């Protein structure tokens, strides 16, 4: 970093005595106004920031990592649930979202390049494009989520509970057809009066008799569940979105394996956490747009653009794993 050598000298000449520093850690280096007082050179500051960001990304990987482990445990325990439930996810929308995110990573990487080369307008355009990609992703995700809420493809109890127009439950009627037997208590339970205890031990879950250990038994699933049934469902689901749009097909499906709600629990947990990261990314990209507009970035100082770029790539990378793990099963 020979280009930065003069900065070090300049700084050393500036000295570290108290005068003018006041209570803050502000630094009055005319050539490098961004240089904090406790760094000797801009290169040292940049390297520190970059190492810090990489460490933060490591924590992000571990943060998501636990959920990926949870996914692996659940999928290993209920393989048929994942095969079955995955068909309810819209591969087309998921695929579009994957493409959108990868493209936004490209524009982000270009933004870093333009920041390094000091091309302000190009940088701002690239940041806006990245922002558009992130927003597009969230809009598509919003439609995916709302549709699933509409047809009871949700976590936990709601997965088994069709709601009529007046908000009442149809459980009694459903119980004869539902693949997962509902206990009588549930037929009288209304959404408003559910106690914490009932929520904790919902009656709708099928527990094999005799299995009373704390460890959930591997679900056997319907013996010999015919892949054809699932394929037929998937085909129907793909071919006829109009009818699918108004109905919660899974509620009447005899082939639905027990504990299918867990697929949606982990699906919402992982994609939800990822969505939060996209929103945070939009926030920091917005902050970059403001600063870039003020012309704060250039060859001497582009650290924030570089670091946000790294963050954005990891958000992208997480999605690249999420997409096949949820949408592309079987």
């Amino acid at each position, binding site marked *: 970093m020979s280009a930065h050598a003069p900065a070090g000298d300049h700084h050393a000449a500036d000295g*570290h*005595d*108290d005068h003018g520093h006041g*209570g*803050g*850690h502000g630094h009055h280096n005319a050539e490098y106004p961004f240089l*904090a*007082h*406790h*760094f000797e050179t801009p290169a*040292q500051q940049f*390297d*520190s920031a970059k*190492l*810090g960001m990489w*460490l*933060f990304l*490591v*924590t*992000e990987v*571990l*943060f*998501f*990592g*636990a*959920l990926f*482990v*949870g996914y692996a*445990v*659940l999928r290993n*325990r*209920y393989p048929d649930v994942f095969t079955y439930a995955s068909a309810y996810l819209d591969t087309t929308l998921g695929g579009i979202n994957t493409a959108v995110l990868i493209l936004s990573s490209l524009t982000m990487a270009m933004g870093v390049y333009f920041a390094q080369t000091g091309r302000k307008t190009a940088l701002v355009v690239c940041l806006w494009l990245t922002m558009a990609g992130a927003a597009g992703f969230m809009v598509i995700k919003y439609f995916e989520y709302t549709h699933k809420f509409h047809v009871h493809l949700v*976590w*936990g*109890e709601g997965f088994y509970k069709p709601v009529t127009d007046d908000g009442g439950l149809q459980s009694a009627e459903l119980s004869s057809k539902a693949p997962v037997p509902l206990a009588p208590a549930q037929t009288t339970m209304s959404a408003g009066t559910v106690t*914490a*205890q009932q*929520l*904790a*031990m*919902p009656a709708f*879950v099928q*527990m094999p008799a005799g299995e009373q*250990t*704390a*460890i*959930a038994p591997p*679900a056997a699933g319907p013996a010999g569940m015919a892949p054809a049934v699932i394929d037929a469902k998937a085909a129907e689901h793909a071919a006829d979105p109009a009818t699918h749009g108004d109905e919660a097909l899974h509620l009447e499906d005899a082939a639905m394996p*027990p*504990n299918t*709600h*867990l697929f949606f*629990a*982990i699906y*919402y*947990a992982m994609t939800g*956490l990822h969505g939060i990261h996209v929103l945070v990314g939009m926030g920091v990209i917005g902050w970059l747009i403001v600063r870039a507009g003020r012309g704060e970035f250039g060859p001497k100082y582009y650290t924030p653009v570089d670091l946000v770029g790294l963050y954005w790539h990891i958000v992208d990378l997480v999605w690249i794993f999420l997409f096949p793990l949820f949408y592309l099963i079987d």
Partner: protein
Amino acid sequence: MTTLPARPAAPTYDTPESDNYLIHDKGIPSWLLTLDHKRIGVLYTVGVLLSFFVGGIFAMLVRTELLTPGRTIIDAETYNHFFTLHGAVMVFLVIIPSIPAALGNFVLPIMLGAKDVAFPRLNLFSYHLWISGAICTVVSLVMGSFDTGWTFYTPYSTTTTAGGVIPVIVGVFILGFSSIFTGLNFIVTIHKLRPPGMTWFRMPLFLWALYATALIQVLATPVLAITLALVVVERIANIGIFNPAMGGDPVLYQHFFWFYSHPAVYIMIVPAMGIISELIAVHSHRQIFGYRFIAFSSVAIAIFSFIVWGHHMFTSGQSSLMNTLFSAISFSVAIPSAVKIFNWICTLYKGSISLNTPMLYALAFIVLFTIGGLTGLHLATLNTDVHLHDTYFVVAHFHYVMMGSALIAMVGGLHHWWPKITGRMYNEKLGMIACAIVFVGFNITFFTQFMLGSHGMPRRYYDYQPEFQIYHVISTIGSYIMASGFLLTAMYLVQSLVSGKRAPANPWGGATLEWECASPPPYYNFHEAPKVGDPYDFSNLHWDERGEGYVTVKPPAAKA
């Protein structure tokens, strides 16, 4: 040494008052919004000590309740809340931040010869997160507290009707990020802010320990964070991932929890070992024995910490293969731990030992950690663990390690750096008496619990068989003795702030860089970049009567 060369012209004990970090700025905002690592360290120390007081009160209430079988002072429900609060406060608010965030923040940059940590703003943010986490705990108390045990095991934690579970879990989540950011800051600081000459193997061992600790903080804590987030979501939205009634897996929760919380034990003990390495070397005035072994054993413990978590689940239905592997790896943790013990004892051997308060704490640490470590082997053995699991034996074991070792080292370190932090000397005689009281009280309290546990008294129980009462009474009396020792400590430390003697720059004869700057240090630590030498070469340090401190005297050869 009859002909000492000329003394340095300006001994640092009469440093002008105008330049030190304590009075550099005035007013409460200048403290709460400070970016100075020293002030942040002091703020953490105050917070941690206050939390220690609160957690100690809960401990006293629990011990008092256990004086008799059945009800003594509180009912069973309240008892469950109190032992949970004791555990959660002590682990998350006291021990985890005590050494890295409180003492580490103060000492690390100065020891390293840096002006500050790499990210001062992030450091302040960590502290604000710590405060937020503490506030969440208070909110939890107001909303009905929690009775889950500090481990928050599911499905109980997701179904209990105690009202304060969600706020406290949010609090621990926040505290986790405070810990992550502190660790991240320290790693970058040690990598990037070492001055010229400060090579990895010239780093004081406390810094090696803080580095190893920071690695664990960064690599383990995110898993706890996401796990606790899932528990909150499970409580709010009933997603069922950890609920066996819904096909979820509570043992998965235990795996996640201990994947963090076992390494967290080393977040507590590794920096404590770092402090002890400093105390033993400085107060023996002798080159530390086996520097590289101690340094690498810290890193080895950090690595081992990630592959032993399963020993908390020997009785949770793990496969026998898993149990065997986890048992074997857990045994191997004893190796780097014992390496340190042997090195410390070899350092003491033929050392010129100053038997003062920090040294007494260091010696107490060696005894207590040896007991705590060796009883860990009983628990790592599969067949004895089946008998001892969830008994008072476990309680005694981890108190010997967490309190008898980690906290004792924290208190020892606090005494060691107290003159540097406050610029005042405490009453040495009272310090030694208090240390002795704490040591005796601690052993009466917890050694008894080894016996209780091996006789079959389960942990966390409110009621017990009459034959256990004698042990409980002895243990409770011991806890009162220990508490009086800590109260005495608090008294003379506060007194030293008011009327303590001014501290010299180097009261103990330490050779690390923090003893080269004044007590208390100037705002920017070093006016000129310090010269880095061997941190354990004490040959040039000599007692100076005039300043009642040690001064560096260059050997004549170096002057020529």
